[in-house]
């Protein structure tokens, strides 16, 4: 992304493996993502594409069998991968926050909401009353009625949608510079999803930081994001501004995604368009282009050589042999 | 931690999945790779072997009194020494394994059958029956086992049958609860309803569907109860309330040794060892099997 100022978050050539009993699973391969200051970057991908891994890697919360094989995660020019536990901890909740996918399990069931929201302010000076007030303010901002009352309640007294609002409130509490939202609406039903989206749009106006918004819901991405990154099977296959991606997609996978998006289907036809085939087995990723096995426009170089990144414009880049000046499909 | 180890089990949600013969073979193969499990298996096999062939293995006649040889500590002829009547302790220990085996295995077997029947009845039958049975189970649960045993012994006197009765009464509720939970969860599942719509009666349903699902975990829990039962019998005999003399129950030998603890400490040492080996053996084996069959059960059991 051609942004004069240095991006807030720069993920550079990140490769991550998971150790499994059958060998290493190459979950992320040479992934690079930039999140400029004050922008919302959408990360799109199917299940298993590595989106959550990327998010968790940034927070330093990956599971034990994850191994970073290479690359850097630069946050404000500091490589997060080199930080020790205490340094990471000082960033979490204050400069970088995360909202998780499943609101039903993300909150501690035996502590009250207020208790949890006060706990995360433990580093701030000030007495409990102030912290409580701050918590109530945030609850009000995310649209929870009667917040003072509800601070004393427990997570199981709230619906999924409300719990996610609480999670968002908690995420915003430290005034973070970067908010990572890992599929915040995936676990919610359509009504709740709509409410959360509405909330996010409202908050967007006041929130000064950057957001890394992860989802497989293209409609949401289109509504909220400035930039979009398309992730497939552990690789970034295309990225650009939201107009670039939605109006001028160049990578066959991106094109297919847009065609298959249920929200965009304009013709009533007998069959739903799908992308044939399956996500590749990451124990043994394809030697050429990662999308080659399923690509409708695959041709000779695709299976043997990995395509490099082609800059299509100042903002848009895709990874495909078709764009390298080779034959077009 | 002896007799109520398994009574701490709350009703377990049993993984629904029929046991196929290939699973058993897999289990066997995997068992051979687990050291502790193998050790457990070896110890259990030792117990079985000793129990079955006790009369042939014992170097001396267990009840043979031989006063000149009394109160000797362990030697080459008497591996575990002799007691105050000159009886060879080692032979008595070997004979004791027979009693342990009979009490342990047979009472658990009876409790299993009874538990299966009652559990299925509670799960499948009418609500009032279920409630009654549950109340009965909970009441028995609320008796600490040894207290229950002592009460029954007061009333019925001391004998092998009394002990077996106590064991059956105190362990059946645990199995019955497990079976009941399983039955209840299966009762309303779709394929049962389908079977019933085809005319299958409750007995058939229970035998063909509930039974195979519940047998696996049930056997594992039961196998872990066997050492508890053996311990209970030993304990009661130790108190003088178990199998009457001159039967060579381990507990009784332990008691005799206890009375002579200052002068003949080898007796208690010898009598304690088979108990330890037996309980360790069954526990290792049971744990290993349980881990292999369903790791989820580990938390609850």
């Amino acid at each position, binding site marked *: 992304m051609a942004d004069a100022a240095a991006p807030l978050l720069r993920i550079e050539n990140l490769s991550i493996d998971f150790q499994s009993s059958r060998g290493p699973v190459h979950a992320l391969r040479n992934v690079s993502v930039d999140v400029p200051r004050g922008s919302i970057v959408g990360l799109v991908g199917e299940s298993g594409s590595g989106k959550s891994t990327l998010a968790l890697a940034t927070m330093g919360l990956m599971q034990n069998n994850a191994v970073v094989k290479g690359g850097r995660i630069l946050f404000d020019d500091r490589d997060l991968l080199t930080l020790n536990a205490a340094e990471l901890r000082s960033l979490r909740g204050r400069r970088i926050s995360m909202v998780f996918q*499943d609101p039903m399990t993300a909150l501690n069931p035996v502590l009250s909401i207020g208790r949890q929201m006060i706990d995360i302010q433990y580093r701030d000076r000030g007495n409990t009353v102030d912290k409580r007030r701050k918590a109530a303010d945030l609850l009000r901002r995310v649209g929870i009625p009667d917040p003072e009352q509800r601070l004393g309640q427990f997570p199981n007294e709230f619906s999924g949608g409300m719990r996610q609002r609480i999670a968002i409130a908690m995420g915003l509490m430290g005034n973070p510079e970067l908010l990572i939202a890992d599929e915040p609406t995936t676990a919610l039903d359509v009504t709740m999803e709509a409410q959360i989206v509405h909330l996010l749009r409202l908050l967007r106006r006041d929130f000064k930081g950057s957001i890394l918004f992860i989802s497989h819901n293209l409609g949401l991405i289109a509504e909220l994001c400035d930039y979009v990154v398309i992730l497939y099977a552990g690789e970034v296959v295309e990225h650009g501004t939201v107009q670039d991606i939605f109006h001028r997609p160049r990578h066959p996978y991106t094109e297919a995604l847009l065609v298959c998006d249920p929200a965009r289907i304009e013709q009533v036809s007998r069959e739903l368009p799908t992308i044939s085939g399956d996500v590749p087995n990451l124990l043994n990723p394809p030697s050429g282009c990662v999308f080659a096995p399923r690509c409708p426009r695959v041709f000779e170089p695709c299976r043997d050589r990995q395509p490099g990144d082609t800059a299509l414009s100042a903002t848009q880049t895709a990874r495909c042999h078709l764009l390298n000046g080779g034959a077009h499909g | 931690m002896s007799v109520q180890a398994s009574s701490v089990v709350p009703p377990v949600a049993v993984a629904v999945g029929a046991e196929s013969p290939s699973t058993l073979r897999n289990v066997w193969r995997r068992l051979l790779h687990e050291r502790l499990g193998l050790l457990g298996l070896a110890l259990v096999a030792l117990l079985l072997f000793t129990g079955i062939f006790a009369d042939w293995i014992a170097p001396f006649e267990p009840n043979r009194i031989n006063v000149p040889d009394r109160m000797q500590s362990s030697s080459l002829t008497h591996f575990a020494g002799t007691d105050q009547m000159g009886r060879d302790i080692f032979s008595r220990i070997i004979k004791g394994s027979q009693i342990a085996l009979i009490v342990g295995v047979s009472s658990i077997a009876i409790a299993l059958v009874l538990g299966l029947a009652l559990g299925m009845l509670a799960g499948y039958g009418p609500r009032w029956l279920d409630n009654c049975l549950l109340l009965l189970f909970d009441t028995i649960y609320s008796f600490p086992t040894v*207290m229950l045993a002592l009460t029954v012994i007061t009333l019925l006197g001391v004998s092998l049958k009394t002990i077996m009765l106590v064991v059956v009464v105190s362990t059946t509720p645990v199995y019955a609860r497990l079976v009941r939970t399983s039955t209840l969860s299966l009762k309303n599942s779709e394929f049962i309803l389908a079977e019933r719509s085809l005319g299958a009666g409750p007995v058939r349903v229970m035998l063909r569907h509930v039974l195979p699902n519940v047998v696996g975990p049930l056997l594992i829990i039961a196998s872990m109860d066997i050492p508890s039962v053996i311990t209970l019998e030993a304990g009661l005999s130790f*108190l003088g309330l178990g199998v009457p003399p001159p039967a060579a129950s381990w507990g009784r030998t332990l008691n005799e040794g206890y009375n002579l603890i200052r002068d003949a400490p080898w007796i*208690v040492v010898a009598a304690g060892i088979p108990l330890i080996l037996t309980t*360790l053996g069954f526990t290792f084996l049971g744990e290993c099997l349980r881990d292999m069959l369903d790791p989820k059960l580990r938390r609850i059991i």
Partner: protein
Amino acid sequence: MLAYALQRIALALLICVVAITALISIIHAIPGDPVTIMLGPRATPEMREAKYREMGMDQPVPVQILRFLGKAVIGDLGKDMWSKRPVTVVVAETLPFTLALIAAGLGWAVVLGIPLGCYSAVRRNSAIDKFTGVISVGTISIPSFVVAIYAMLIFAVKLKWFPAIGAGDRGDLADQLHHLVMPAFALGLGWVGYLARIVRASMLEIMGEHHVRTARAFGLRERSIIFRYALRIAILPTITLISLAFGTLLSSAVFTEYIFARPGIGKLVVDAVNFRNYPVVMGAVFITVALFSLGTMLADLLIAKLDPRVRSSL
């Protein structure tokens, strides 16, 4: 919450009633005659008559049950057959010793077991974790009376560090504690391992759960997470376990009291059984059942108070 409490109390009482009913019914169902058992074969018919009337056994069974319960409520559990003293008094004399023993045994098991389990979960696969794991299995399964006898052999008979017999002199607390050490040790040993295992398993499960991940994501300190987020939840099943432990420990206490010749309910009942002192057996068992029911009920209520998930499902 109040409704739940009342419900549990009612259940506990109901169980006591059923227990007594069962006991009295068994007495009448079995062959042989309790009065003959008590009086011996040389009793004359007149003595038997008198005994029947004295014990209230000439009444129909339901009446007997009601009479027993009625008397139990006002604290009359009959008379010790041998000393003629009220059973309640006899039990009250010995109960404190047993309770002290159980408290001491359970106490050290909790004090050692829970931290051990917690540590094992947090420092998984460390030397302590592996050591605890192996030892736990061993101590859980080995019968407590075997442990007690071996302990007595090693520490009292051979090493002479602790007294082998009795509960110590009345009024001398230090002496009583000295006498308590070995029995409590033997009683609690199995539970150290058991508690450690349960706590470890619960903690591991919880530490892997999403809300712990959330807490980390907000930068909470590890210590805070372990205690306020993980242990707080892991402790709940442990509470249930401890209340059930009371029942098991009561059983084990019988042996421990016998082995160390300590006064207590266990010894009382064993002696009563040997002498066919049937009112004492009945009374003691009844009290034990009542206490145990009380224990489990209190544990249930405690959990309901601590765990909002349980409260909301009531």
